[in-house]
């Protein structure tokens, strides 16, 4: 028989090895890929062309992860509608600063990188300032080729994921942020991917972000995925974050796409020794949305905090898959996700924390709480722990339910009507996550934003 460590290799292989899925639209993507590679403007260096080809080949091999069996990572999210739909490459879109400010957080003092339909908008973006290199990838490939090459595609493995493979195949532009060692940029960074639509048919973009933070530096980054339209389109985003030794990354992710759209967002982080990554996500639902985060604690003493708030309503589906690998000792991780569900929506949380055999003194906490406001909404939660080291402190918890009626009674007894009391409690529930967002100005924006959403998330008292 195999021992525990060998068995875990088998489990890992089973979980990570994707099962062949839906390949019905592979031909369409291959055709788009041929058109894309024939476009001389998109060529880039030979290693990048090779990487794209690998991505395309891997995607063609895998298809979208729709398998019913042996497809644990996508157990609660059926991506068949994405796999079967046809999408055209998004055409060039137009956007004004005035329109942007209405859609998302906006601050002129920040270093902003704006992408409209996947293409970099120089006019909306800011000039680099304060010791940070922030530009679009296409430019960075020319001015910082070695740096980009040594990090791009290193953390988001296309071997195990069809969506990453597809994103890599169409890697042309995206955001690149690089902070040299021992630097603290004065202004936070804001990377915005906005979808506008000019054609009748659904479109697809493959936004890519690479954030490289040198040893001893500290950076604040906000990523926003937003839209002007209420249509069907597909955003297939990949973000790679490298956190150097003793570096700190404060990361926020704001995802408010069209309720008709598909959004798959992959975030892959690698952390150096004694580094700190705080990543707080806010998402509303779409037709199918996935926030897929994987943090690799591969050096001793690192800490990561992955929190999130999700609010779904209507027929929306939102899946948060939050994974942490504790590879080396003395690392700490915190996962705290909270969901507010209304309408007939469905929210999924799956968290997987793996503590490897060498990762002694690991301290890991994983938590998911769901507030279900209406009949017909569904919350699925799968917080899993896999532990191979013994000197560890690990725990997880999950709860689901409606507003506590005793608490409500307490508030009503003090003269508040049901509606006010309900909305106060919902707001308080959300604030627990919002308060952990590491960028202060954005935190306030988020608080206001969620408050504006609350009329859609009403508590209906039982009779």
């Amino acid at each position: 028989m195999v021992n525990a460590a060998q068995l875990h290799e088998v489990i890992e292989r089973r979980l990570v090895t994707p099962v062949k899925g839906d390949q019905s639209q592979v031909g369409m993507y291959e055709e788009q890929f041929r058109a894309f590679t024939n476009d001389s403007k998109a060529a880039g260096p030979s290693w990048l062309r090779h990487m794209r080809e690998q991505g395309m080949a891997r995607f063609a091999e895998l298809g979208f992860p729709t398998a019913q069996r042996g497809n644990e990572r996508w157990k609660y999210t059926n991506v068949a509608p994405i796999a079967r739909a046809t999408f055209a490459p998004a055409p060039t879109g137009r956007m004004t600063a005035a329109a942007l400010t209405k859609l998302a957080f906006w601050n002129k003092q920040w270093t902003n990188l704006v992408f409209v339909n996947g293409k970099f908008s120089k006019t909306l973006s800011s000039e680099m300032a304060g010791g940070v290199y922030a530009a679009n990838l296409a430019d960075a490939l020319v001015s910082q080729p070695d740096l980009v090459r040594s990090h791009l595609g290193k953390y988001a493995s296309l071997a195990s994921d069809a969506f990453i493979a597809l994103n890599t195949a169409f890697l042309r532009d995206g955001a690149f942020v690089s902070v040299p060692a021992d630097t603290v940029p004065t202004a936070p960074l804001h990377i915005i991917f906005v979808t506008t639509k000019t054609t009748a048919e659904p479109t697809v973009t493959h936004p890519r972000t690479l954030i490289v933070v040198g040893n001893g530096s500290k950076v604040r980054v906000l990523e926003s995925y937003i839209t002007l339209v209420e249509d069907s389109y597909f955003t297939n985003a990949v973000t790679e974050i490298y956190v150097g030794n003793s570096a700190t990354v404060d990361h926020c992710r704001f995802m408010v796409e069209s309720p008709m759209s598909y959004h798959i967002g992959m975030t892959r982080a690698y952390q150096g020794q004694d580094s700190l990554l705080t990543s707080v996500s806010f998402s509303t639902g779409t037709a199918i949305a996935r926030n897929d985060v994987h943090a690799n604690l591969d050096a001793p003493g690192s800490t990561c905090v992955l929190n999130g708030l999700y609010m779904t309503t209507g027929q929306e589906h939102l899946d948060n898959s939050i994974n942490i690998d504790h590879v080396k000792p003395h690392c700490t991780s915190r996962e705290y996700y909270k969901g507010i569900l209304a309408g007939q929506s469905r929210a999924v949380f799956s968290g997987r924390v793996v503590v490897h055999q060498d990762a002694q003194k690991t301290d890991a906490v994983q938590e998911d709480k769901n507030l279900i406001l209406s009949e017909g909404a569904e919350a699925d939660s799968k917080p899993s722990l896999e532990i191979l080291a013994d000197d560890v402190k690990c725990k997880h918890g999950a709860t689901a339910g409606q507003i506590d009626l005793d608490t409500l009674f307490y508030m009503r007894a003090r003269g508040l009507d049901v509606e006010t009391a309900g909305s106060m409690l919902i707001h308080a529930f959300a604030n627990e996550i919002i308060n952990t967002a590491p960028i202060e100005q954005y935190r306030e924006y988020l608080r206001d934003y969620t408050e504006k959403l609350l009329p859609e998330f009403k508590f209906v008292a039982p009779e």
Partner: protein
Amino acid sequence: MTTPPNTISRQTGVSQQDYKWGFDINIDSDAVPKGLSEETIHQIVAKKGEPEWMLEWRLRALRHWMKLKQEEPTWAYISHPPIDFQDIIYYAAPKTKAGPQSLDEVDPELVTAFNKLGIPLQEQKQLAGVAIDAVLDSASVATTYKKTLDKYGIIFCSFTEAIKEHPELVKKYMGSVVPYTDNFYAALNSAVFSDGSFIYIPKGVRCPIELMTYFRINLANTGQFERTLIIADEGSYVSYLEGCTAPIRKQNQLHAAIVEIIALDNAQVKYSTLQNWYPGDKEGKGGVFNFVTKRGKAMENSKISWTQVETGSAITWKYPSVILQGDNSVGEFYSVALVNNYQQADTGTKMIHIGKNTKSTIVAKGISAGHGNNTYRGLVRFMPGATNAKNYSQCDSLLIGDKCSANTVPYIEVKNSTARIEHEASTSKVSDDQLFYCLQRGMSSEEAHHMIIKGFCKGIFNELPFEFAVEASQLLRVSLEGAVG
């Protein structure tokens, strides 16, 4: 500590370090040849003298199993060499002359064997009110306490007998909770199951004694495929105990059982298991592969409670579940699972809330030592109609040594907004502070570990019937020998 009279671990003089229950009983076995085909089913049915409808039922299950193309499920956190399902003897019954009427007619060798096991059949009536239906390699050999039970109209007999004597009950309930299409091993069991226990508690009867069955795998290369069916009619109560042992065999022995419980309105069923099948040796050779499907269906105001102590088997794959069908029904699952050396356990429960105001409680304690791998896997599902349903789950894992692992994989699916669910789990090692405290007071490291581990499991042991509780604690100590201290 004194060993109570009626326990499994009757000291046999074998070194405590080794598997205490490792001895062969030389009883002639009446076995069918190796392999599985429709022919095998015909042979089993012929040997057991079963009626035509059973043959059909078994064949349907076999055909379904064949359709699964011998692809065992791979989602569990277990790994083993492929099982050659054609290299297994599917039926082996001890040769006894036509059904013994009394203990005197039972093969004396068998009685000796039971005595070695600590089941003194002859002293049964003086013992702690436990009626034992001993299943030795598939066929139920002797059933005692029949008369007492008859008085209440309680049926407690072997499955084979039930097929003959109570076909209407078997037809009505067999497969109603675990259909043969349920999973790979359930299909296999449904096709080849050899024997097992059958219990029927009539309306309003509270079973006066705890019913008990023994399972023991004896013949080399046999799989044990027993099937248990418990029907608690309206307003009845029964507590059922199950103990399992297997002698040392080099090869892995397959065990694929099914337990079905039906608790009709206002009934209560308590099912306790102590499983110490042979876990394999220190290098991980041999041991039993234990693939069990246990499930209960709880109707209105009824309650089904599973308690298990799993210390044996090379592989444990077992999820005693409750379908909370009726309003106000209650499901409980209390479990201690221990792995040492190269054992693998993937065990937990499923609580499916369908009715209103249904409640379930899950308390699972996992202990990992040696190179073992222990997984809690549980599903709690609230269906849309499960208004005001509640679940509380707690899963704690204890790690002893840095070569073992502990996993917690809960699935929570909530489709009703009034549901309330809380799940908690923690994993740690034996606290250094607690150990220091004990050592400082003069305890040996082993004693201290044992005491702390016993404390860790106390909540579960409290759910066990008394004799089993003492036994379970002893079993933990023996299973962990060499791992601590």
